[in-house]
Structure formats: C-alpha cells, structure tokens
C-alpha cells in the first residue's frame, strides 16, 4: 500500500514535470514537441536521478555517521565543488563541460581529504572525526573560494555562484546519459549495504560481533555516498535539503530497516526534486526560481506533517 502510494507520487511528479512548463504545450502535441523532447524530458529525468541520488546518499551517510544531521553536503563536498568551479572560471576554461568537471574534481578532492583526515589510529574511519573534518575542509575551501572571487577581475565569477546554487537548467540528454552510465555502481554498492547498515545501527562493536565487516562497510558507504553527491553537484550544483530531509521522512513511513528505506529514499528524493523543479519553472513564469528554495518550501511542511504523525503514534 505504501509502495503503491509512493509509486503513484513518483509517476505524478514525473508526468507533471513533462506536461507542465512556463509554455503551454497541448497534450496532443506532447510527443512531437521539441520543447518536451529536448528540454522537459531530460530535465525531468535528471531531476529524478539527482533527487534520488542525493536522498540515497543522505540516508547512507546518516546511517554511517549515526547523526541525524548528516547530509551529503555537510562533509566538505559543496565547499570543494565551489572551489573547483570558481577555479575553472578564474582560469578561463571555457568548454561547456569545464565547470561541471572542475566542480566534480573539487568535490572529490575535498572528499578525499576528509576521508584521509577521518582515518584515525590504525586506519579506522571514525564518524565523529569525519564530520569535524568535513566541516573544517568545507570552511577552508569556502575561504579559498572567497579569496579567489575577491581578488579576481572576472565579472563572470559572480555568476559561478548562480550556477553553484543553481539547479537543473543545464539538463540535456548528455547529462542524463552521463548519470545513466555513472550511477549504477555507487547505487548498487549502497543498496547492497542495506543489511550490514542495519547491524551498524546497533553500534560498531555489536555489528562486528554479528559478523559485519564494519571497517570495509564504512569505507564503501562513505565513498559511494560521496561519489553520488559529487556527480549531483557536477550536473546541477548544490541542491540542499533533499539529502537531509527525505531519508528522515521515509524513516517515518518505512522505519529504520535499510532494505526498504534505501529504495524508498531514492524514489522519494527523485519525486520531490522533480516536483520542486516543476514548481520552480512554473510558479513565477517567465522567470525561474532556484530549485533549492522550492525543495525547502515543499519539503519542510511535508516533513513537519510526517514528523508529527510519527511522534504522536
């Protein structure tokens, strides 16, 4: 029943994203419309994949760090991506793929640094150190970014931030294809980690006694979740809130077991972002809202309702 409801929400969000837009396309002409085929369809797919990846990444990291505030962008990733993007513009790399690639590289660089700092003692990944390292690396990257922006002459730099906090306007079949090739591996790693993550929720010692390879699990989840978030930054900038709140919302409906939780988070995140992007495109047409604003405006009330229901029951 719950799954059917979620499925319907996903289908509705996806159809809405294709049918609705600032420009009216008659239903009969939908399939033949250039606007639908070249713009709306890839954008709806991208929104779904990015939203799902962010939510799944958030769910994985929350389980790994055992902190409800964990979020793909808390671990230095957005700071690194911003630094990469700003550096690309400051170095006048003009190719259309330069900005996403540089942001991706920056995000991975920051993540690698956080990972290295998170390895303490005999090479164990300590969640508490991980989160502190993430905040520190993020702050450092943000400082370097601000320094570049304030010392550089390029007026384009200001717009880098628009891109970074941007959204899905750069969607094309190319970017969908990139995700289609890239996503399966990290997705599979995270889905496969569902059962051991349940054990980890009991604590590292009990999980170890129950036969989980805790060290390898933590590494796999951290790397896969970071890879997911990094590619999301590269194709759509930093879209906040989805990775933080969707996993919690899904936990109120599916509980703490990761086998149902992870796929539900993926579907819910995808539906939320597709829906939010439709609102962002349509609400103030012909202008467009940054999608991150809408994810918060749509998501917070829903989350508050679920939270209420969950705490009273």
């Amino acid at each position: 029943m719950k799954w059917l409801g979620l499925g319907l929400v996903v289908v509705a969000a996806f159809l809405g994203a294709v049918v609705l837009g600032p420009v009216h396309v008659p239903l009969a002409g939908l399939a033949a419309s250039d606007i639908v085929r070249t713009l709306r369809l890839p954008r709806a797919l991208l929104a779904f994949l990015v939203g799902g990846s962010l939510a799944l990444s958030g769910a994985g990291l929350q389980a790994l760090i055992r902190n409800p505030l964990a979020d793909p962008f808390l671990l230095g990733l957005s700071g690194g991506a911003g630094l990469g993007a700003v550096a690309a513009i400051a170095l006048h790399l003009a190719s259309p793929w330069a900005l996403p690639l540089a942001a991706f590289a920056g995000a991975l660089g920051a993540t690698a640094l956080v990972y290295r700092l998170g390895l303490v003692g005999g090479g164990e990944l300590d969640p508490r150190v991980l989160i502190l390292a993430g905040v520190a690396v993020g702050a450092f990257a943000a400082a370097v970014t601000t320094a570049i922006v304030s010392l550089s002459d390029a007026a384009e730099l200001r717009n880098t931030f628009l891109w970074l906090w941007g959204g899905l306007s750069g969607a094309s079949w190319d970017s969908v294809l990139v995700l289609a090739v890239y996503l399966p591996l990290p997705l599979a790693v995270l889905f496969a980690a569902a059962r051991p993550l349940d054990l980890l929720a009991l604590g590292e010692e009990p999980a170890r006694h129950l036969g989980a390879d805790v060290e390898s699990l933590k590494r796999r989840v951290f790397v896969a979740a970071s890879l997911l978030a990094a590619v999301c930054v590269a194709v759509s900038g930093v879209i906040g809130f989805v990775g933080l709140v969707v996993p919690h919302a899904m936990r109120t409906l599916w509980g703490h077991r990761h086998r149902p939780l992870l796929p539900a988070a993926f579907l819910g995140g995808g539906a939320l972002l597709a829906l939010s992007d439709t609102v962002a495109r349509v609400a103030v047409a012909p202008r467009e809202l940054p999608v991150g604003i809408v994810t918060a405006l749509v998501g917070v009330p829903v989350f508050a309702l679920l939270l209420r229901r969950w705490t009273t029951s």
Partner: protein
Amino acid sequence: MERRHSLRSHTIRLVALAAALACRPADHAPAAAGSTVIDDAGRTVVLAQPAHRIVSLSPAVTELLFALGVGDRVVGRTTWCDYPPVVRLVPSVGDGLNPSLEALAARRPDLVVLYRSPLNETAAAQLSRLGIAAVVLRQDRLEDVARAARLLGRLVGRSAAGDSLADSLSRLLAAPAPRSRRRLAFVVWDSPPIVIGAGSYLDQLATLAGAENVFHDIAAASAAVGLETIATRDPDVIVVVSDSAEPRPPALARRPEWRVIRAVREGRFVYLVGSLFGRPGPRAGGAAGELRRLLGQVTR
C-alpha cells in the same frame, strides 16, 4: 520594495533637480565659486571651489569627466576604467567596490565619485569624516547618467558642459531610432540562463537601436528564465555581452539543450564588448548606433 526604492530615488532626483536649479545663478559667477549638490544617496555635498583632484570609482564617471573636458583632473580610477585609453596612465585605486580608504586618501583628492551601493555609501561617509568630499551616484540607466552629468558639471565648475551633455542624453532617450522590428534577447549567463529585463540599461539600448527586447515584460534588470521560455519567445538574435575584447561564440552555442532556440540553431548571435555596451555613459548614442549596425548585419 522595488517600487518604494524607485519612489525614493525619484524624490531624491526631484530634490537634486531643485538643488541644481537653486544653484544655477552661481554658474555665471566667477570660476572660484563653490557648489552644493545633493547626491543619489541623499547626502549634501558642499565644495568651496570646483574640484581639481578627482578620484573616479566607476568607469562611467571617468568617461563623463573626460566628456566634460576635465579628464586631466582625474587622479585616481578603477581597474575597470579603460576609456578614453589615456586614462590608463592614471593610477588605479582598486575595483571601485568597497574601496580602500587609504589608497583613496593617498591620491589627495578633493572629490571622490562613487557608484551607489551600500558599501560605497559607508565609504563616502568615512571619506567625509576625513574631510574629503564624496558623491554617490546611481549609474544604472541613461537617466542616471544624464543626472550625473549635470551634477558633476556643477562640482567641477563646468555646469554648461554638464547641462548640454545631459540634454543630449535626454534627447537621445526621447527619440529612439525607428523600429526595425528586430527582436532580440540579451543572454548574460547560460547556466542558469539569465536574460536582461526592462530595468536594465541594455534594454534601453535595444529600444534606442530600434530593436525590441523579447523580455521587456520582466521589470527587473535581469532574471533567470527557462530555456523553453526563450525558445517560445523566439528572438531573431541572441545578444551576448562579454567582458573580453575579442568576441567569441559563447559556450552555450554548442550545447544541445540550447539548440531548441531557433536563433541559436541558426547561429544568429551578436557580441557586444562590455566596455562600450556594458555601462551607461556618454557614449550611449554611439553604442546604440553600433548595436543597430550589428543587428542589421545578422541575416534573418
């Protein structure tokens, strides 16, 4: 908010005009006469005598000062000031935003002209405390430039030149070129797509060139819009303003999602150099003529 803001600036404009009219008789007095003006931040600026050492913190003001015939009095400029070319010989004091007071004071100016922004208003107040006269001027639209020309003319003892420059700009605004029915969209950024709306100087420039900005209905100076909106409004030409001197095809021309727009598909672009087109100034008439010529070159 926007409306209140513009109402306020309108009031300021009226006050400034009244002040300008009030000190008109002084124009005919001997050259040493001082002047009192009210700037666009509502501050009263008093000069005992015409300014002789001027730091200009905006490229448009630098151009205005040269147009008023007092270019030789400019003793400091911004990194962006590149016209007329001779101004490059004047020391730069920074980028004009949040200026360093020490760098300004070191030029020993008797007048500093700043672009209107909250940070610059603070800087102007601090300069006043140092005993350096500072005026804050809006320079967003051609009307602002006309008003700035009058006000600066008064402050440098060239009221007649300032008024005549302002009048010629007002005449330019009152008589745009005949409509060519060329429809254009200014794209200033590609991801997210940002276009120019009616609030911008570029929109004025399009009208002056006889063309129509397809996003004239957006009141703001610029706004993020969807690609499908641009595609449906179907401009004849995409106009790209770039900071670099040599025009090169924008990266967006090569991206598949942009090719939904007919003008992109058919390669109908016009490139404008920021130093002439990106700032409202005394060369606006020339800029409008050049835009008209460039638009005429694009085959339909």
